[in-house]
């Protein structure tokens, strides 16, 4: 515990964050600009789906991030419960709304894509249902985190929930293989290599990287603001204590 404190001191963390943040932000803007340009202009329309295939460049990275962020939260939760380091709690707390946002984006863009493809805004197939469950898991995680007078207890309870809810992640991943779903199976993350044409794969991958960088930027900013808030609380308390 004390060893951890020495290594991961909040001030040192803040300093490091301030150094890294401009670089990551710059990379995010660049990759996002490149990715968007490629997905809108250089990549070809699909021979079946036409222009609406471009929704993919937002939809697929969002869905990746929905699972990636949840997995990060689950890992942070394990760290929080075993080593009890506050940074793990902060990371989980800061990640949850971002992950919920990505999940919502995946569901919304999926719905927009589904309307022209399947003729319905929503179908109850395994992939969609399990992602919807993921969205509710995020909401439950956030609600539980803020449900207690004592923040520490909220953090730990949410950590247990995050770990329990992790069983959903493999279900989402493999739902398209295990069940006959309307949703198409994976075409990038496959054991035998991607089955999608490079002209579409490249913009998709760049968008994937851009989304990941975006997550890191927002995560760092959110952790930073939490730390600053904690400092404020402490100064306020010191004032009260002096008056005591």
């Amino acid at each position, binding site marked *: 515990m004390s060893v951890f404190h020495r290594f991961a001191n909040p001030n040192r963390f803040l300093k490091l964050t301030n150094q890294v943040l401009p670089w990551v932000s710059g990379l995010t803007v660049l990759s996002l600009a490149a990715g968007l340009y490629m997905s809108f202009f250089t990549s070809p329309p699909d021979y079946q789906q036409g222009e609406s295939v471009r929704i993919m460049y937002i939809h697929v990275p969002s869905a990746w991030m929905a699972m990636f962020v949840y997995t990060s939260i689950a890992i942070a939760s394990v760290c929080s419960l075993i080593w009890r380091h506050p940074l793990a709690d902060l990371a989980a707390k800061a990640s949850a709304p971002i992950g919920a946002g990505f999940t919502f984006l995946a569901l919304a863009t999926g719905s927009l894509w589904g309307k022209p493809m399947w003729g319905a805004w929503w179908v109850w197939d395994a992939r969609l249902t399990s992602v919807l469950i993921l969205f509710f898991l995020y*909401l439950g995680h956030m*609600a*539980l985190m803020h449900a207690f007078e004592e923040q520490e*207890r909220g953090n730990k309870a949410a950590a247990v929930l995050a770990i329990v809810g992790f069983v959903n992640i493999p279900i989402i991943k493999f739902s398209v293989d295990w069940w006959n779903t309307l949703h198409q199976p994976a075409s990038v993350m496959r054991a035998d290599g991607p089955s999608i044409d490079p002209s579409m794969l490249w913009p998709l991958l760049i968008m994937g990287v851009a989304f990941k960088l975006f997550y890191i930027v927002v995560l760092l900013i959110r952790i930073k603001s939490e730390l600053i808030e904690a400092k404020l609380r402490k100064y306020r308390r010191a004032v009260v204590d002096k008056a005591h």
Partner: protein
Amino acid sequence: MKAFLNIVSRDLHLAFRQKSDLTMAVLFFILTAMLFPFGLGPEPNLLARIAPGIIWVTALLAVLLSLERLFLADYEDGSLEQLILSSTSLEVAVLAKVFAHWLTTGLPLILAAPLIALLFNMDSDAMTILLIAMILGTPSLSLIGAIAATLTLGARRGGVLIPLLVLPLYIPTLIFGVGAIDAAMNSLEAGAVIANARPHLLLLGAILLVSLLITPLAGAAALRQSVE
């Protein structure tokens, strides 16, 4: 094992001394299910077709209603602290309390289910599968629900929070519970009933095994946190 039975018998004892608790869930189950014929009309074929879904959804809500009580009394009167300090392993204690909860909530629901199935005009094959599915599925409802019940101890608005945490996790049980009965009802030959329902029942069994594994660990961790 002795500690397990001790806790089960104590919780049953407590439940039988407070009979209203015992009947609440099952009464809710029957009354809510009875509302549907009024809302949808008494057409027998329609009722038979939607019966599996209605029975499962109402059973799920009945279990949900009973979850808050599962650990709350022990938490409030200090019994939970004593339980943690006692030599009984907390994981075993969680399992015992969940088992007692199932005996007083899940089991009565299973016993009442054939009654509702009759009112909804279900045939006997489907009813058999319904019972098997409920025997496999209701323990999972208690187990998964217990995690939410332990996590929300001491929370503001714990009662509102439990449905938010638990309902998403109940969806797989609901899907395969209804799926098993639907498969049975859709099979044309008499011999194919079990075979058609089998994959769904196996998945219900898998959910039960996974929750049997996760609940004691997560529940015990949450209980320890709740008194800290």
